[in-house]
């Protein structure tokens, strides 16, 4: 299959698999590898990787999160792009780390920030892949939850363009799509009432649009939303956008 690639110089990339894919969503990490390899890249997964450090960072424990960030920068040292199947971990590398090191800039941290990509953003804006030649067998309604950490990045447009170009796929609008799902890392357990209500509002809007599948770019949002939906007796199929790219190629 011919897919135009704008960054032909990139032959190898590093995969930051995220802790959530390491522990639970292994198929998302697999899909990331398969799609990137399909695009002609060789994907390396540094075995010493752990987590980006976001839980400690968001909790305000920056001495803890800086340790994790330094470890992360060491594991992903070099000059290869670091590809992340998560908007929020990518945002941690690209922005959060700069914030927590603003008083003591660290070249390895700055380097990691400049090389980190959310995977859909990378495919669309980095590689220049502007359409996806996949297909669903039957018309499929996709509700895309943008995930808040992709605000102000190229991810949202990338997902809408790539998924929207898949045969038989329709990205359906739903109400208050700018609103957060209520996950928020430790927020979901430290503010359980508000988190649950926010998630329920989000689900109401999404399910009102009758999607065949809920699509996200952060498994953390989807874990929270699908977990709520299951307990509320209204389970909804949910996939990472990269899984859709992989699955529709295989179809």
């Amino acid at each position, binding site marked *: 299959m011919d897919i135009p690639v704008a960054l032909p110089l990139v032959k190898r990339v590093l995969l930051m*698999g995220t802790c959530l*894919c*390491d*522990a*639970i*969503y*292994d198929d998302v*990490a*697999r899909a990331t*590898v398969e799609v990137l390899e399909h695009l002609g890249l060789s994907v390396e*997964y540094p075995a*010493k*990787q*752990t*987590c980006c*450090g976001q*839980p400690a960072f*968001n*909790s*305000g*424990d*920056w001495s*803890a*999160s800086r*340790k*994790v960030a330094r*470890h992360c920068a060491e594991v992903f040292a070099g000059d290869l792009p670091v590809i992340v199947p998560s908007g929020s971990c990518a945002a941690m590398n690209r922005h*959060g780390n700069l*914030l*927590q090191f603003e008083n003591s800039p660290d070249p390895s941290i700055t380097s990691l920030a400049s090389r980190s990509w959310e995977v859909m953003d990378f495919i669309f804006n980095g590689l220049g892949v502007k359409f996806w030649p996949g297909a669903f067998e039957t018309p499929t309604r996709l509700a895309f939850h943008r995930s*808040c950490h992709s*605000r*102000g990045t190229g991810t949202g447009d990338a997902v809408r363009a790539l998924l929207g170009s898949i045969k038989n796929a329709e990205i359906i609008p739903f109400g*208050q799509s*700018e*609103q*957060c799902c209520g*996950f*928020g890392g*430790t*927020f*979901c*357990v*430290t*503010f*359980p*009432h*508000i*988190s*649950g*209500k*926010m998630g329920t*509002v989000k689900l109401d809007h999404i399910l009102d649009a009758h999607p065949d599948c809920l699509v996200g770019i952060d498994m953390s949002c989807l*874990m*929270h939303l*699908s*977990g*709520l939906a*299951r*307990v509320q007796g209204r389970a909804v199929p949910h996939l990472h956008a990269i899984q859709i790219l992989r699955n529709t190629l295989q179809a």
Partner: protein
Amino acid sequence: MIGKQLIDQFARSLSDERQHLVSAAASAGTVKREQVLHNDYQDLDALRKLAASIKDHTLHHLGDYLAQAEQALVARGAKVHFAVTGEDACQTILSILQNHGVTRLTKSKSMAAEEIHLNPFLIQNGVECLESDLGEFIIQLDNDVPSHIVKPIIHKNRSDVARTFQREKIAEDFNDDPQTLTRRARVFLREKYMQSQACITGANFVCADSGRLLLVTNEGNSRFGMAPVPVHIALVGIEKLIPREKDLAVFLNLLARSATGQQLTVYTEFINGPRAAHQTEGPEHLHVVFMDNGRSKILASNCREILRCLRCGACQNVCPVYRQASGHAYRSIYGGPIGAVLSPLLFSERFPELADLAKASTLCGACNEVCPVDIPIPDLLLRLRDKAQRQRIHSPAAIPMAPFAALATSPVLWRGAMSLSKAMNHLPIQITPLPPARAWFDQRALPAFHGGDFRKWMKARLKNKNRKPED
């Protein structure tokens, strides 16, 4: 791990009816803002960034602009006062009133006055002080506090207002028709305007070049307040300065659209100074009280961007936490994202007890996205969390992060933990008594753990690949 977050508890205790009121009005505000701004501007972000840079520039040269504004105001015949603290501002205003022999006044809406509790202070000191903004008037009757910057009674419905009017004998009977309510308030307030001897207002902007104050309202209440009285006092936070009058082209276009989805507020008043000899009406005396009240400290901190704030309330409207918890949850006159940043900074002596406000956010960034002056609110919330942690302020329900950091900096332990996680699939973790687990499982299911599966798959794939050339 013990204890609960106050804002979450407040949200839990809120009746569904109140929560729906707040949420519906806030969402409607967000929709209106979005429509009018995107209809009118192609590159909204450029405008927001321009506004931010004008504010930053002003704050960077605040000393110079204050001096310039003072000079320009004095040249127009105004008297300029400076107040370091809220108490200073209250005392200054009281002595101005006493010098003019004022015992009755009306006050138009001013967040600066709310911030320093000017109303109760003046009433305690024998000055009858009536709020003339309809929402603030109702707040005053109910002895309540505002729960939204622009819509102070966002948490009330018209029946609440009708009951208040009946109770306070503003109306003889219960009637919750909005038009009737407004008419009744008008009849009551008009008489009060005529009896009053002074008018206190805030100011939305003070132009340093011209020395003119700018006031925006939708009810015209500040005009009514000023028309019959000899004394006008404007209480102004020092961050309200802008360098030039022509900068208003940027700010006025953003302010009303962001706040209420209007292109311009119904009344936009330029205050030229006290009444000139050739003018037939207006106060003969204009006093401008510039108030610091913690702002210089904020300017010297790593959260100074918050001083750009225009008090439009767009961040409150869009905030999903505010929509669930309402403004009163934030235990200050500033609720929502702006309050979560501003309150612990402004009331810095209460920082330990207000440090939890910065935690009441998913850091979703919607507030930054709608902010007319592009304040990076999530970054400021994070800096405040860091500050609280460094001061070792207890955070209820917090999960200790040192063990996490130890695990996440040791690849061997980490991989071990990942493999172990699969064992959890066979344990009844749904009923574990750990509070964070309880908080998760009370409302949500958890998918099965596949710890380490991806690593195995990746290893096998690599082996396969390396073997291929030999095949």
